[in-house]
Structures are given as structure tokens and as C-alpha cells.
């Protein structure tokens, strides 16, 4: 009787906890980056207001936007494809040195085909910060971006 009790109240719960912990650790360890397309944006802004916000106060904007999913509306200034086939959509006013550079998630590369230079689109991505450069023009960078249709 006593042995049975030990089994029921100590060994069994320990086994259950151990198994749950093992599953949790395994899942957490193998967790992949979430597809941005499935994420809800924390902020929805226009490209020009986003860059001017960063230019006015980089520190406050970093606190507000870093690591957040942002939806940015703007005109496609340029579409870049690098030598490895990765796309970057550059949003902003052609007259302005400031832009939002959206590095497109490789699993969404095919969707970029519909994007035309000069058209107004929305891009959702994760804000990785502000790259200030007087000569080249400053940019807000979005990574793992997807085009919103």
C-alpha cells in the first residue's frame, strides 16, 4: 500500500513535470522566427512621418518602435535586388534623403514581383533601428518585411 502511494504521489507527478519541461525546452529551443505576415502591427504609420519622427528624436523613437511590428504606407522610391536575390523595398518621397528601407523576408520574395516603382504600397516589418548618414541619407530599417495587399 505504501509503495503504491509513493508511486502515485511522488514518482508519477515528477514524471509528468519532467516530460512537460522536456517538451517545453525542446519547443523553445527549436522555435523559429514568426512569419511577419501573420503578425498584427503595433503601429501603422506613413513612411514620411516615421522617418521624421526618428530624425527628430532617435532615442524616443527607438524605445517606441524597436523590435515592434510596424505597418508603413508610402511610395516605392526604389526596388533593390542584391546579388543573392534578396529584395529591399525603399519607401519615401523621391525628393527627400530620408527613407524607410524594408528588407523583404526571403519566404515572401515572390510577392515582390507585383511591386512597381512609383506606386503607393504598404509594407509590414520589424523595426531594427535608424541608420543616420549625412552623405547617403538616413534610413529607418525594417527587417523580415512583407508586402501588405
Amino acid at each position: 500500500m505504501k509503495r503504491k502511494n509513493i508511486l502515485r504521489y511522488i514518482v508519477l507527478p515528477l514524471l509528468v513535470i519532467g516530460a512537460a519541461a522536456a517538451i517545453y525546452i525542446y519547443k523553445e529551443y527549436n522555435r523559429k522566427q514568426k512569419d511577419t505576415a501573420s503578425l498584427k502591427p503595433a503601429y501603422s504609420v506613413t513612411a514620411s512621418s516615421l522617418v521624421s519622427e526618428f530624425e527628430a528624436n532617435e532615442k524616443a523613437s527607438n524605445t517606441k518602435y524597436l523590435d515592434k511590428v510596424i505597418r508603413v504606407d508610402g511610395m516605392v522610391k526604389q526596388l533593390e535586388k542584391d546579388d543573392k536575390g534578396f529584395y529591399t523595398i525603399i519607401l519615401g518621397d523621391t525628393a527627400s534623403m530620408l527613407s524607410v528601407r524594408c528588407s523583404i523576408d526571403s519566404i515572401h520574395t515572390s510577392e515582390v514581383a507585383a511591386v512597381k516603382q512609383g506606386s503607393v504600397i504598404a509594407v509590414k516589418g520589424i523595426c531594427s533601428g535608424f541608420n543616420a548618414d549625412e552623405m547617403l541619407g538616413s534610413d529607418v530599417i525594417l527587417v523580415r518585411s512583407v508586402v501588405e495587399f
Partner: protein
Amino acid sequence: MKNFFVAAITVLVAMTGFGQKYFTKGAQINFDATSPSSPEKIEGINRTATCVVDTKTGNMQFAALMKGFGFERALMEEHFNENYVESDKYPKAEFKGEIKNSDKVDFTKDGTYTVKIKGKLTMHGESKDVETDAKLTMQNGKIKATAELSVLLSDYKISIPGLVADKVSKTAKITVSCLLEPFKS
């Protein structure tokens, strides 16, 4: 006729002015801290780094946002940002330096050159002198550049906890590859 000469000279000066500076905003930087005994790759890739090279003076610089490094495993990326490079506190990594023998490179015609790069690398709030070889390939008026650099993480006050010491190496291999285009202002 005088006007023609003035115009011709202006155009010539403007043309030689071009092609002095080359840049990209899509430089790729790989940060590989896989220890030799680790069964898996511990590598982050940043495709949003900027780079500017002045071919006349040989001066060059890189800037990369730490949060722009993507890792395959989400947990690895979180640890990289929160525990190792503390990217909230130090959002940017920067390299400022020069091509030591840029005079040996003919930037006006196609060819491949090996150059020496020397400068200061700043990350995690620490600056250290670094030196490496880079390969430059001139092609159709653009520069394709690749370089590799090993850094000791403790030099930048990045400490690796004992628990993961068998996976995360004490030195990181930084590989840079970019295609620089002429800058027209």
C-alpha cells in the same frame, strides 16, 4: 568656342569627381560564433549594413544595426540581442578605417585585387584596432568586396556564460560581402 571649353572642362571635372566614392546600403555581414565542438551553427546574418569607400583617400566605413542580425532560431537571436551584444544599449556596430594600399588598385578597369584594411571596430561600446585582407573585384564600374575578420569577443566585453561555452566560441568570425556602386551626389 571659349564657352565650349569651359563647358568641356566642367564636364571633365564632374566626371572625374564621380567614382571617387562608392557605397551600398545592402552590405551583408555574417557573424559566426560557432565553436568547433558545437553540433549546430551559431550564425547571424545582417543584410542591411551600409558601407562607404572613398577610392581617392582609401578611407572606408561600415555601419550595421545590431538588431538587423537574423538568426535561424528565435531563441538564439533573443540571446544575442539581450545577453551578448545588449543591442538596446549599443544599437550599432561600426568600422572606420582605410585601405592601406588603395594606390595599387585601378578602380577604372575590371580586375581583382587583394588589399590590406586597417581600422577601428566598435561594438558593444568597445573600440579595438583590427586589420585584415579584403578582396576587391572591379566589375562594370562597381566594386565587389569581400573580407573576413576574427575578433576575440572578450575584447569587446562580450562574455560567454559557462553553460553554452561548448557551443558559442570565444572568437567570432565576421564575414563581409558587398557590392559597392558609384555615389552620385
